[in-house]
């Protein structure tokens, strides 16, 4: 099984490399060329500066948006009046592409990092809110009743029953919102920025530096993959009692 897993990936890379030997258009580099350019770029400060700029936008946005989404989603799941007040607005705006707010945010908060962080936070808010909300709603009533029957206070019920049963779904949404934060960060940087991986790929595109284009692509791919692994690792660590999915 493990062989088949690696097999598909190796087969794709081999085919790609073979195709490159036969001759590809100049904007499609071979895997070996990409690897060589990437290792080269690892030795220069430019790549690290752009990665730092990108993470400086995506991580605060992810943290703010996810924390707000989890807090408000839990509150809307628990308190009926809050649910009726907030949830319709959230579910109404949920299918709207949040990136269109970027130009307005740029006008309100300037073209610096603040508008980008806030748009990333806005995009990350929705999946976490929705999963926290449904996570609370799916708490088994019998568990709540038995806790109340055994004399638990409302806070204890929330802390010991509702929160643990909602947390697997919150973690599932954190994976989604982390991926979203990278997408929105990249888009915002491609639209307007003076630093970051999205800016780097834009510059590379305009000056036909295909090597830089692929370096930026590989960097964002590694970041996305590593971030996803981290969230999954934290999930399995913090919620070790949960059956692995």
């Amino acid at each position, binding site marked *: 099984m493990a062989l088949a897993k690696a097999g598909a990936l190796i087969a794709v890379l081999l085919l790609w490399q073979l195709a490159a030997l036969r001759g590809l258009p100049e904007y499609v580099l071979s895997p070996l060329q990409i690897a060589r350019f990437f290792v080269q770029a690892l030795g220069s400060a430019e790549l690290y500066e752009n990665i730092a700029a990108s993470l400086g936008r995506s991580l605060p946005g992810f943290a703010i948006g996810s924390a707000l989404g989890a807090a408000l989603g839990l509150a809307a799941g628990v308190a009926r009046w809050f649910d009726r007040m907030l949830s319709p607005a959230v579910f109404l705006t949920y*299918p*709207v*592409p949040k990136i*269109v707010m970027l130009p307005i945010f740029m*006008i309100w908060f300037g073209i610096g990092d603040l508008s980008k962080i806030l748009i990333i936070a806005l995009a990350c808010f929705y*999946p976490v809110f929705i999963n926290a909300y449904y996570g609370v709603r799916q708490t088994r009533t019998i568990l709540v009743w038995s806790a109340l029957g055994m004399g638990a206070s409302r806070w204890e019920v929330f802390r010991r029953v509702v929160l643990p049963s909602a947390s697997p779904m919150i973690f599932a949404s954190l994976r989604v919102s982390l991926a979203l934060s990278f*997408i929105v960060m990249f888009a915002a940087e491609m639209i307007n920025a003076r630093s970051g991986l999205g800016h780097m790929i834009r510059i590379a595109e305009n000056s036909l530096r295909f090597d830089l284009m692929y370096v930026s*692509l590989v960097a964002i*791919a590694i970041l996305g993959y590593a971030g*996803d692994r981290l969230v999954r690792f934290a999930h399995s660590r913090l919620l070790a009692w949960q059956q692995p999915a």
Partner: protein
Amino acid sequence: MSRFLPFLFVGIALAIWEAAARSGLWSPLLFPSLTRIFKELVLFLSSGTTLLEAWVSLERALGGFALAAVVGILLGIVMGRSRLVAALLDPLFSGTYAVPKLALFPIFIFVFGIGSLSKIALVFLECLYPIVIMTYAGARDVSRALLWSAQNMGASRAAILRRVVIPATTPFIFAGFRVAVPVAMIVVVITEMISSADGLGYLVIYSLASLKTDRMLAVVVVIAVLGYALDKAVVLLRDRLIYWEKLDTYYV
């Protein structure tokens, strides 16, 4: 009182907006009043050229989505019913799932040109993931009891696929659709904002560059309504097709 509660939040937000617009503290460039946005909206809807821009965006989103739906459902069902195919393809999909496909856009421009094709290709790629992953999850977990009883009663493989596997997978397919449809809109708007000479995303950037904030917000409203309507269409279709199962959509 409680009947108006759902509208309270939206109402308060709109009232604050209008108050901010009328207070004169900020330039109308920052906070155009609702009436001006509404006027621009009417202007947008009454002009053929702007409606054409909306159609261009919609065409790209739906084209990429439809391609992804066909390929994604096929791949997902084959992966769910064949362990060999799953072992081959699952690592590819789960390994690249968290990678922002948007980063491929500059390369897509070189490969597919700067017109619609590169955008449709990116929409296809981004929509493919949720549809494949959800369909795979559904097709994999078809109840064994149902499969065995169908086999016992002498159903052919094709009959089992059509009568058992596909109906059991459909709710998951729609869950994938509900994730993929907003993604399609997002990708279209982003790619049009980055590089395009037509479409709604381009109109947003163009209005911003000409400091027409009210027009920009009118276009944003149009995009929002389109995104909402597409999602509603998927929900309506789902409730018609799989009336036996009610599902809330969330991320798994």
